[in-house]
């Protein structure tokens, strides 16, 4: 998670709008801002290095590495190969970049599940990471942030067992970015009912039906969280309580980290979860689809060494707030001399 933060009030101050009210409407108090030398590759690498040290995993045992993002630094040239090289996992692995708006990271988890389940690889790595931007003044600018999470999928020393996964996918044009365009476009209110809410609720309900569970079965629930309000509303629609959503909801403190959003929420849950607890995670990506996971925390979590790396809560509480001018400089929104 990048160090820097900006508040909706500060963004609104520049554009002559009531940013505080906008933040309240979105349920976002602060959002993270990447430094000029951070991007999806650096965030993914830092997350995975921490995961490997915590898991005491030899990077040479990684057989597959996938990075889900909608802000890969290159249009052509994989993020995953740089990350693999930077963690010492090359050359004996398959690596690729995933893109499905905000759910590319959860899609990467499903792919790793297949490879690990088929015993084609010992460990698969799924990363969800983004440094996405909203156009200046657009509603997205108040929430679009940066961050990522990395998960190692394997059969040994499993702390969170994925018992079921299910996806729900349709062609729904709620949010997109055309090739060559700097900022994404969206369908305004269309991003709500026919897109986010329909896919998340359908996917969650179908998964619980398959797993033979109901909302009361879960100690924690994590939804994709483009803002602070959507996940709370969809949680209530499905019958979950505020207590179940408490740790999985991180967007109010750091903004919408897109491909990282649900995964950072899951990481925060696993920071506090106890053995035997069940977790439901439902990702969402515009365009549109949801991936749902029924997860059981195992006894192994009691032996998991968290002494290295920053707890998610520390990222949520910490950070250095910057003014809009510095934010604009960091995000490359200022046209410099010599640029065409």
């Amino acid at each position: 998670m990048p160090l820097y933060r900006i508040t909706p009030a500060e963004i609104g101050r520049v554009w002559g709008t009531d940013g505080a009210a906008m933040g309240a409407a979105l349920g976002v108090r602060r959002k993270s801002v990447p430094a000029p030398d951070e991007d999806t590759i650096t965030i993914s690498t830092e997350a995975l290095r921490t995961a490997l040290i915590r898991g005491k995993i030899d990077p040479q045992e990684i057989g597959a590495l996938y990075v889900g993002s909608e802000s890969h630094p290159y249009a052509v040239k994989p993020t995953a190969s740089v990350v693999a090289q930077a963690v010492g996992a090359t050359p004996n692995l398959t690596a690729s970049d995933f893109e499905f708006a905000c759910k590319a990271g959860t899609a990467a988890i499903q792919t790793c599940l297949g490879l690990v389940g088929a015993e084609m690889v010992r460990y698969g790595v799924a990363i969800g990471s983004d440094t996405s931007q909203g156009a200046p003044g657009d509603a997205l600018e108040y929430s679009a942030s940066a961050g990522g999470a990395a998960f190692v999928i394997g059969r040994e020393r499993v702390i969170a067992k994925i018992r079921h996964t299910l996806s729900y996918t349709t062609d729904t044009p709620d949010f997109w970015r055309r090739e060559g365009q700097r900022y994404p476009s969206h369908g305004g209110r269309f991003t709500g009912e026919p897109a986010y809410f329909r896919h998340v609720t359908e996917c969650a309900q179908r998964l619980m039906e398959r797993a033979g569970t109901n909302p009361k079965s879960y100690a924690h629930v994590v939804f994709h969280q483009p803002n602070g309000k959507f996940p709370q509303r969809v949680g209530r629609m499905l019958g979950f309580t505020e207590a179940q959503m408490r740790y999985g909801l991180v967007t109010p403190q750091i903004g919408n980290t897109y491909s990282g959003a649900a995964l950072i929420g899951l990481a925060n849950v696993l920071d506090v979860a106890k053995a035997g607890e069940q977790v439901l995670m439902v990702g969402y990506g515009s365009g549109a689809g949801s991936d749902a996971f029924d997860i059981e925390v195992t006894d192994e979590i009691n032996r998991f060494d968290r002494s290295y790396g920053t707890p998610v809560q520390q990222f949520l509480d910490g950070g250095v707030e910057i003014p809009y001018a510095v934010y604009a400089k960091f995000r490359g929104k200022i046209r410099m001399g010599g640029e065409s």
Partner: protein
Amino acid sequence: MSIARFWRETPVRYNLGGCRCPTCLTVYFPPRSVCPVCVQHRSSIGRLEPFQLSGEGEVVSYTVVHDAAEGFEMQVPYALAIVKTREGPQLTAPVVDIDPSEVRIGLKVRATFRKLREEGKAGVIHYGYKFAPMDDVHRPPERPTQSETAPSTAPTAVASESRA
């Protein structure tokens, strides 16, 4: 810098890949082909072993850059430090995620992976190490070095029925 030249330095810049003399155990960064410490240093030619630095160290000297070279304008002011690593070699690199005025001699730091520079808007992006302040949660007492984690050649037996 040409693509090929930077690519050759990838192990150094990405993973702090240095080398170590098997005789006197002196660690060098960047890697070199001969150990100048050993009396019979000619005998060390071709025998130095790859050795990955832990990335931990402390600032022994620094300056704050206000007038940056091309490509670094967006990052001024930033601290550029000489960092003495735990293994001995001293590296020069920026210290990030800290107000430059707070950098001081003796500051404990750890390596972090960052973007170093871009070859214009359409060119290659170069990545590598910088340093960030070390806090308590980034102080692994038993963090293995490369030499201690030689990859096993065969998977070990499955220890659990669990399937992630």
